[in-house]
């Protein structure tokens, strides 16, 4: 509009304050203003512009063509132009025209224009100060001061029912039950009740979830089975958060443990869980992304600073240079993740504590020019450091030596015991198998004189019609009379169990198809299955390698014998048939009607469960038949020769020998780990080579017994020979017991690098950072956390930009209050429970959320900066579900432990225990703005129809409504609709109904009674079901 009018000669020149100044602020001020004065030039006032920089004035009033400002903006050469290439967006031609017109018209500006103040004097960079305040709760006192300045009266206090509900949900995430309210009838103060609630596990769980939001808790995700982000078992960190809150661990101590437990408490497994904070940003593909995410969110979450804005160039608003950014990165450069085995569990897939450690102590940090990782500035190493603008708080990293048990975690006594028992267990299995093989051999030498009569097979079951015979153990199996389908793609392995008697000799037939999944797409039948053992025959539509395969699990260890693998062109959505016959140790397998496998099962068969198994697959199985075969039935004519049987005996003997050697070698290995003296390491190496040699010999004996191809036997013979040579000169290298598995540093990491020993020192950088952050002089740490806690209690932050306290962020609406609370927190040893207590016992907290329409506050303080009323809050997704469970009396109070599957719709545990990642979310919770694991400094509060559908139509809503109705009035109770409505309102909404509300509810109940006269409970359930959909149920008021 402007240029056109100007050309017509009718328009006034553009106004400096409203038009020109904002353009200059956006395009010039980061380099030429309060923050930086490149070339000595400032552009934050017209006078300063005129004054110019080192090369003279930048304006010639009345002559835009001669003004350097305009000339530099117009330059074609990106290096000459302002803003220069890569330093900021160009000034648009429209904006340039406006600047020209303003200059040509004389560059007029108001006289008393104020220059930008010194950015280092920004409020948030100064330490907080406590002001003198009046008596009573300091929150009330400070806010009352602000209110009285504007003569704003507060609204009245909330009705008592609503206030109790507010307090209970706020502190524990659960509304009060009738029993809890009855106790309150005995008049107790808010303070007493708050103390009780603050001491409860429920409080720890509720507030743990708040901190999990801020710290971006997420379970692992990736593609298929590959972990790409976060780590398995990171729930240990969640449990640490709960524990810490329950014990009121000081916030500064929480910071020290989360950032540096591996340096400060390296042998304390409980505290090491805390470093989940830094396990969370793990990203297998790109270390720079991992570091960027770490810096961005530690900056936002703990410092309230957008450090991330200084990755490519100096920060445009705050005095944080690009060098500051990379020095901050250097603090984290050495760290990697390892998974410590705990509680004697040797399989890190089953359990392990993921935690951090300094791995690459000498890795140098380089500044990336313009943030481009391909373009590092090799001229200078970035030494670890913290932004200097926050004052002169010491930051002084010192290397920290680590105890032996830290870098030799295999020495943990529980693990040592578990390792020893594992070998002993294997040995006892092999010894049993040896005994059985010997008996078989003896029996074969004296064949029975008469053959037992052949009996005919018995049909055990056909299809899946009999519900007593089948149990879904895991996955989503749907059973129809002639068909079973498994549709779950989330769980790696799913199982459908056959509950009939254990099978020894049997025949199984099925027509099947694999319908999806990725990548292995395996479906099969496990037999002789127990917790740690199974024999499994499966078909796999694994794209590069489709096959039928026999595999075994013994003592938890899976093996896939070469002989048991037959390549078959199995593809998705194509039917095929499998027929499996098992008799003693003989197994025959037919695929699409022809025999493809004749297999001798391991000797140690022990009849157990029959299971239908899928592994990363969905499937459809029909025409399933299961037959029991009479004992002694002859499946084939092949009877192993005496020679074969004798070879088998030899194989088992050799295996037992190897295992005994391994057991004998155990102590030398331990000794060498404890004290790597020359003689110790030599004995350990010798023992391990002996075991290796004997194991190779046992493998050879087994191969000979099984009659595998000659080349394979030859190659194994060579292995044995090589080891025999090596035995002569065992050296001093040995494999220590593994107590911790390093997570891959990247997708390309070599095995050698993965196996490298853990360092005996740590850099001490993160300890220094934690000490810096928790210094009483630090201007931000306490303010940032106080603001987060305040926001969650009060529904409205003191600093609206909760993750940006910098100059681009919002000013605090009451700095005096923020500072007072921050200092008070530090003075009370960073006790968060003290802070909670301070807030919830204030009169301000107890104010009503529904002030009258004519309250003067609406006009005087429409943004509620003085907190003259309580801001209503939408309940978080977890509180909606947990609250319903609690009111229905079915909430499972168990605290902590492994995650629940996000598909588990039966669980009545609290919602924070569900598996929750970028890829997986529990479907009910997902409707109500469950936390975004990438970034959740505040929860979204959306209002969408899907929420209505979830609360109205979900099974959980209905079931729990019914249970709540039963609790208010048991089926037989004669409670009148009138009374029921009274109670229901109290229970669900925390307040009694108004007369009109009561009337419409009673009417509805009567209507429901007429339509379902036989079911007296149904109208009650319907009423509860309606009330949980009321806005005032999912709102905290």
């Amino acid at each position, binding site marked *: 509009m402007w240029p056109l009018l100007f050309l017509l000669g009718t328009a006034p020149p553009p106004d400096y304050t409203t038009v020109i100044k904002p353009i200059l602020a956006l395009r010039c001020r980061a380099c030429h203003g309060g923050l930086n004065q490149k070339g000595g030039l400032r552009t934050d006032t017209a006078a300063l512009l005129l004054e110019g920089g080192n090369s003279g004035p930048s304006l010639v009033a009345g002559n835009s063509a001669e003004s350097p400002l305009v000339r530099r903006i117009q330059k074609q050469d990106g290096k000459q132009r302002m803003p220069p290439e890569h330093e900021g967006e160009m000034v648009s031609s429209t904006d340039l025209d406006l600047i020209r017109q303003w200059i040509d018209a004389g560059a007029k500006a108001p006289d008393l224009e104020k220059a930008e103040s010194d950015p280092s004097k920004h409020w948030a960079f100064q330490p907080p100060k406590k002001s003198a305040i009046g008596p009573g709760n300091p929150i009330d006192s400070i806010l009352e001061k602000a209110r009285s300045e504007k003569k704003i009266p507060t609204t009245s206090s909330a009705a008592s029912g609503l206030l109790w509900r507010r307090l209970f949900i706020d502190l524990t995430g659960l509304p009060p039950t009738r029993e809890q309210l009855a106790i309150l009838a005995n008049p107790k103060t808010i303070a007493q009740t708050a103390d009780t609630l603050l001491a409860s596990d429920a409080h720890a769980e509720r507030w743990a979830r708040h901190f999990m939001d801020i710290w971006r808790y997420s379970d692992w995700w990736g593609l298929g089975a590959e972990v790409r982000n976060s780590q398995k078992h990171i729930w240990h960190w969640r449990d640490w958060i709960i524990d810490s809150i329950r014990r009121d661990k000081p916030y500064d101590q929480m910071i020290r443990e989360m950032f540096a437990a591996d340096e400060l408490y390296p042998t304390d497994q409980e505290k090491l869980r805390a470093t989940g904070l830094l396990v969370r940003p793990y990203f297998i593909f790109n270390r720079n992304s991992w570091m960027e995410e770490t810096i961005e969110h530690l900056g936002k979450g703990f410092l309230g600073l957008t450090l991330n804005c200084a990755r490519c160039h100096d920060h445009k608003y705050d005095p944080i240079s690009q060098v500051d950014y990379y020095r901050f990165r250097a603090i984290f450069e050495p760290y990697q993740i390892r998974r410590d085995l705990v509680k004697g569990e040797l399989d890190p897939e089953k359990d392990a504590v993921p935690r951090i450690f300094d791995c690459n102590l000498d890795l140098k940090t380089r500044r990336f020019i313009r943030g481009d990782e391909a373009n590092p500035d090799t001229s200078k190493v970035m030494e670890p450091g913290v932004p200097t603008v926050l004052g002169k708080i010491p930051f002084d990293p010192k290397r920290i030596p680590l105890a032996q048990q830290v870098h030799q975690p295999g020495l943990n006594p529980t693990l040592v015991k578990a390792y020893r028992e594992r070998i002993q267990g294997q040995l006892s299995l092999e010894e049993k198998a040896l005994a059985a093989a010997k008996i078989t051999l003896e029996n074969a030498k004296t064949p029975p004189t008469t053959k037992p009569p052949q009996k005919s097979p018995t049909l055990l079951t056909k299809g899946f019609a009999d519900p007593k015979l089948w149990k879904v153990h895991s996955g989503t199996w749907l059973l129809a009379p002639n068909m079973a389908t498994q549709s779950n*793609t989330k769980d790696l392995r799913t199982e459908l169990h056959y509950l009939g008697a254990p099978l020894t000799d049997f025949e199984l037939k099925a027509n099947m198809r694999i319908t999806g999944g990725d990548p292995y797409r395996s479906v099969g039948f496990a037999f002789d299955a127990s917790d740690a053992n199974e024999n499994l025959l499966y078909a796999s539509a694994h794209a590069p390698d489709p096959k039928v395969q026999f595999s075994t699990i013994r003592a938890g260890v899976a093996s896939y014998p070469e002989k048991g693998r037959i390549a078959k062109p199995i593809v998705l959505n194509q039917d095929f048939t499998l027929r499996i016959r098992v008799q003693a140790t003989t197994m025959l397998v037919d695929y699409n009607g022809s025999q493809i496998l004749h297999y001798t099962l391991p000797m140690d068969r022990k009849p157990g469960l029959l299971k239908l198994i899928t592994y990363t697959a969905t499937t459809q199985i029909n025409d399933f038949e299961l037959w029991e075969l009479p004992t002694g039935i002859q499946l084939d004519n092949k009877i192993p020769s005496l020679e074969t049987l004798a070879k088998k005996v030899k194989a088992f003997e050799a295996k037992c020998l190897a295992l005994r050697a391994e057991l004998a070698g155990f102590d030398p290995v331990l000794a060498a780990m404890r004290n790597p003296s020359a003689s110790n390491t030599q004995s350990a190496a010798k023992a391990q080579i002996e075991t290796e040699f004997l194991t190779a010999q046992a493998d050879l004996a087994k191969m000979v017994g099984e009659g595998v191809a000659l080349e394979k036997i030859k190659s194994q013979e060579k292995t044995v020979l090589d080891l025999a040579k090596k035995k002569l000169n065992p050296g001093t290298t040995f494999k220590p017991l593994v107590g911790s598995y390093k997570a891959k540093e990247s997708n390309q990491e070599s095995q050698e690098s993965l196996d490298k020993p853990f360092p005996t020192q740590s850099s001490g950088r993160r300890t220094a950072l934690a000490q810096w952050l928790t210094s009483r002089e630090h201007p931000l740490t306490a303010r940032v956390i106080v603001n987060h806690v305040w926001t969650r209690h009060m529904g409205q932050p003191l600093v609206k930009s909760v993750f940006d306290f910098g100059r681009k962020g919002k000013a605090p609406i009451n700095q005096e209050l923020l500072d007072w609370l921050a200092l008070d927190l530090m003075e009370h040893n960073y006790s968060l429970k003290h802070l909670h207590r301070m807030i919830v016992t204030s009169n301000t907290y107890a104010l009503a959320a529904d002030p009258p329409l004519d309250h003067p506050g609406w006009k005087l303080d429409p943004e509620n900066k003085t907190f003259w009323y309580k801001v209503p809050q939408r309940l978080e997704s977890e509180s909606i579900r947990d609250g319903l469970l609690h009111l229905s009396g079915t909430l499972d109070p168990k605290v902590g432990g492994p995650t629940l599957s996000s598909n588990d719709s039966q669980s009545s545990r609290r919602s924070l225990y569900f598996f929750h990642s970028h890829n997986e979310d529990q479907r009910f919770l997902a409707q109500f703005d469950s936390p975004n694991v990438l970034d959740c400094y505040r929860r*979204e509060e959306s*209002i969408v129809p*899907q929420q209505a559908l979830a609360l109205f139509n979900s099974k959980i809503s209905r079931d729990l409504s019914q249970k709540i109705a039963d609790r208010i009035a048991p089926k037989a109770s004669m409670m009148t609709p009138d009374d029921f409505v009274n109670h229901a309102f109290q229970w669900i909404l925390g307040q009694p109904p108004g007369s009109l509300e009561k009337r419409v*509810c009673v009417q509805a109940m009567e209507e429901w009674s007429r339509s379902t006269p036989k079911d007296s409970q149904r109208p009650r359930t319907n009423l509860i079901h309606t009330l949980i959909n009321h806005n005032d149920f999912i709102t905290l008021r």
Partner: protein
Amino acid sequence: MIGPISLANRRHFLGRSCLGFGSLALNAMLSQKAQGGSGLMPHAVPKAKSVIWLFMNGGTSHLESFDPKPELDKYAGKTISETPYKDVQNPNRFKDLRVVAKGDANGQQRHRLLARQIGFQKRGQCGIPVSDWYPHLGSMIDEMAIVKSMWTTDDNHGAQTQFHSGRHMLDGEFPNLGAWVHYGLGTLNENLPQFISMGTREYWNKRDGHYLGPSHDAVPVKVDTANPLDFGRPESDMTFAEQKSAFGLLDKLGTIAATRRPYDRDLEARLQSYELAFRMQKSLPEVMDFAKETEATRNLYGLDRSETRPFGQQLLATRRLVEKGVRFVQIQHGGGGAGAWDAHEGLKGNHATLCQQTDKPMAGLLLDLKRRGLLETTLVVWATEFGRTPGTQGSTGRDHHPFAFSIWMAGGGIKGGVAHGATDEIGFHAVENRHYVTDVHATILHLMGLDSRKLEIPERKRLEIDHGQVIREILA
């Protein structure tokens, strides 16, 4: 029943909902109701009212769909360095590439050229060649504009996200195009969700709204008359009559509360959301019920054959949704894992099957929309995350290829029978009228009457490349 709201209060409450940007569309809907108008105002006169977004997961080969290269047959078996076109592998020409997973088995240079796995015929009046795997779609070529010069920067399946949001995976996550359209335009029909997705979204992120908020996530629906959307019907024994009276009671209770708190916008919005929910659960099953469609129409989409039925049903449902005014329908074909089109080996069998699954339904959709006069206002977009290498991976497959690929658009202000842009002789680089993925976004937004520069969110910096350039050459 809702009383007057003073300006100050209104500002106050809008201010509060700033956090949940989510409320914006709903506020728009509410104000629309109040004004009897038509949602948010577009920035310009729109050509298209709705978008149908068909995305082929895994990466469809441009060389076997819309970009025939006879030189591939000529030099098949030779390495690129043995052909006159060896400069295509000059490392300087790979500078746009941003690799997420270094050293991955896929996304590598494939040197030995693979002959075309299928023939091409010139089709339609325009005579643009189309792969013989698309016999039906080829018959609609005069309605379609092919863009043969697309490029992206991710050599792995993060490019799926990239095509939807415009940003590389390493930049983080950003709103998808559908979310921007939803954010910008609001609603045409109050009985149905306005942004709908169908098909499996497994590999790439499941949210759409990101910083626009969850209310701009697509609502996932299934072609299932009984239960087309999550929680779309009672999972319990509650009867329809009971549900209706419970809704009625809820409305009364809400109104009573609103009388006491006339300023409570959340309460008001929640009441509205229940009305919409109630209507949605009734309307969606109706849309998914094809009983009133003629047999001829059903066959047009290939519902009579098992290969074409799943995708055909989704497209017929899509037409019915668009007919009812739904803004944006986002369909993933071959979703799950890395995507079905990811033909690292056996491209011939893979693409023949997948083309067959989609050919007739897509042709049927275009024809059906045209016959009903809906094609003028409905923009159909077909896209995929990247093309496939001219060189062979193994002996029968092609690897990921971000340097060149093809997409097409039709209807809603698009010129038909046009092939725009070009690749070099072996289809390696887009060389003429190159387009990054956000150019497709810009074109769509333009046709919807939106200007991405006016859709900015405070505090959320957008880059020049996010806005893209309208592909003017394919506009009608």
